[in-house]
């Protein structure tokens, strides 16, 4: 048994009182969970503490909170581990971010998380005709989508999403991972429609800023950002030239490196809008003019650098691009499916042992 100091963020929007910190000292073994700590405080000291929980085994996804600044499941975080994340003296527990607080540690998942999940049509739309018996699908394709199926809808990734922090309309990591669960499923019939919807939405998949917050937040290894990158890659295959310039930016970037070897920023901007003379590009480039002028004045950007190409990709580099881009099928190593050599070795050894 050890003593732990819990500092809980309390707030009841139905009263006039501002949010405040509430401290309780609880006694538990260090390997017990933060949730058990909160429940002890609730049972012993103050029955009015608001916390949502059910399974206590990291399956139901009800007890998502922020513990010493990091999102996670209260039932899946040991007290000693939680303590080590902070200053080593106190365990601070707050409600998740990006969602309104209903009371204390309980946030309104309906208002944000579920609404977004519903927006991506979270069910399978069968290919017709439905086979008489089962659908046959590649093992690899199914293992791939099981990664997003592992989501328990706890909202930890939504809580930490930095794009949603500035754009609450952003579809967000959980819903986009859910979208990939169907876009990656060979049995689904509406891959193109799904992708087009996500690509054309001004707050859709191209608003993800690559910050990796959701990857670190997820207690189930869903890798939401990785799924978003897959959605974008597939939208590229369908050549969905979205109004947000997601497709154009990606292609402009790749071509820029193929041409120059190094990134030539002065070309990337107009090309991302469809080229210097594209109707979409003109207003964007005019808006960027003050930035360019300031850059020129500070000798950050020189006219030669802006107009000429200081670097050129070598023939050899261009040949690499052409070889890999020219393959009939794109090759993608999915570590979630194939695993690391290191992880596979003991398994292989064990099998050999069993056979021997």
């Amino acid at each position, binding site marked *: 048994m050890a003593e732990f100091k819990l500092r809980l963020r309390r707030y009841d929007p139905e009263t006039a009182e501002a949010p405040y910190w509430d401290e309780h000292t609880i006694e538990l073994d260090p390997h017990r969970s933060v949730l058990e700590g909160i429940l002890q405080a609730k049972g012993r000291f103050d029955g009015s503490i608001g916390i949502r929980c059910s399974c206590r085994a990291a399956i139901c996804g009800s007890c998502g909170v922020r513990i010493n600044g990091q999102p996670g499941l209260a039932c899946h975080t040991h007290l000693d581990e939680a303590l080590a994340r902070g200053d080593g003296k106190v365990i601070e527990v707050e409600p998740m971010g990006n969602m309104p607080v209903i009371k204390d540690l309980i946030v309104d998942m309906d208002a944000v998380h579920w609404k977004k999940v519903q927006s991506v049509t979270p069910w399978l739309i069968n290919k017709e005709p439905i086979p008489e018996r089962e659908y046959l699908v590649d093992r690899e394709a199914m293992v791939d989508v099981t990664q997003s199926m592992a989501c328990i809808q706890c909202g930890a990734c939504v809580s930490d999403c930095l794009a949603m922090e500035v*754009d609450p309309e952003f579809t967000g990591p959980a819903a986009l991972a859910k979208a990939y669960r169907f876009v990656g499923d060979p049995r689904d019939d509406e891959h193109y429609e799904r992708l087009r919807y996500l690509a054309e939405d001004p707050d859709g998949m191209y608003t993800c800023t690559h910050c990796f917050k959701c990857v670190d937040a997820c207690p189930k290894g869903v890798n939401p950002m990785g799924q978003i990158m897959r959605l974008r890659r597939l939208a590229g295959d369908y050549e969905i030239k979205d109004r947000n310039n997601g497709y154009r930016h990606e292609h402009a970037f790749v071509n820029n490196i193929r041409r120059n070897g190094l990134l030539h920023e002065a070309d990337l901007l107009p090309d991302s809008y469809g080229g210097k003379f594209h109707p979409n590009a003109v207003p964007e480039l005019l808006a960027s003019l003050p930035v360019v002028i300031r850059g020129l004045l500070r000798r950050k950007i020189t006219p030669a650098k802006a107009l000429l190409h200081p670097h050129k990709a070598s023939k050899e580099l261009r040949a690499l691009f052409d070889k890999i881009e020219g393959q009939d099928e794109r090759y993608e190593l999915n570590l979630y499916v194939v695993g690391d050599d290191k992880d596979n070795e003991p398994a292989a050894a064990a099998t050999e042992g069993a056979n021997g």
Partner: protein
Amino acid sequence: MKVAYWPGCVSRGFTPELHGAMAQVAPLLDIELIELDRANCCGAGVIAEHNQELADTLNARTFAMAQQTDGELMMNICSTCQGAQSECQERLDANAVYRERINSSIGDNGLHYEQGIVNKNFLWVLVEEIGLENLRGLVKRPLTNLKVGPFYGCYIIRPHDRIGIDDEHPRHTYLEQVIEALGGTVIDYAGSHKCCGFPIITMNKTASLKQAGRHMGDAVEADADCVVTPCPLCHLNLDLQQPIAAAIVARQLGMPVLHLPQLVGLALGLSPKELGMGRHIVKPNTVIDWSQSVVASTAAA
């Protein structure tokens, strides 16, 4: 120490002062830079988004070039390069069959990637190779009372397991440690470990610059004199775009943003001009206005 040096694209493009500052600072730290001048863009996550094998091949090419030098390790000066290259390295190192496939592509040019390259950002080299004690000893002009807000850039701190953050390597705290070692005061503010917004500047400009504007506004409110970053792409959004970001968040900003080698260079006695500090959009007056600057007054004293 000798390092195979990958400066990245933006440090030679729209933030040329970064590459210049690194060249000035390296000899003072006894780092010999073997520049990988035939290497290519890391893909910044965008090429990987388009075609993973292409990104892995491009970075394997860079790694192989680094392994041909006699550098002790490979060093970069860009958070985004660090993250994008670490991602590719994870796949290359995980699977021998895949590595062979990639090696057969780059092999035509006499290149071969051996599993397990050590690729470190300048920030990690400072703390893990040079050491903070050594660094402290080299300081000629301590940044006494200079209030510096760290800004890491996502790619160098997340995902934490790929980036190698553990008890022994608390890499998400290195900027604070370096600022302190240089004699400066660390400013704790909300945005230090958040996203600058740069990756979506062409897709959702408002959301992108709201991030930059909000973080710089938070640094202003926390009373920082300047912000320091190891990432030139962050620098584009935080400095080059700052006037537009300020308009979007409707806040007065004027927050100077220094590249990491510039901050180190100032403390090691280099002049702001040598470090290219005149090339910033937000003039670093709070840092180098010698009539008022705490840095200058310490130098005089």
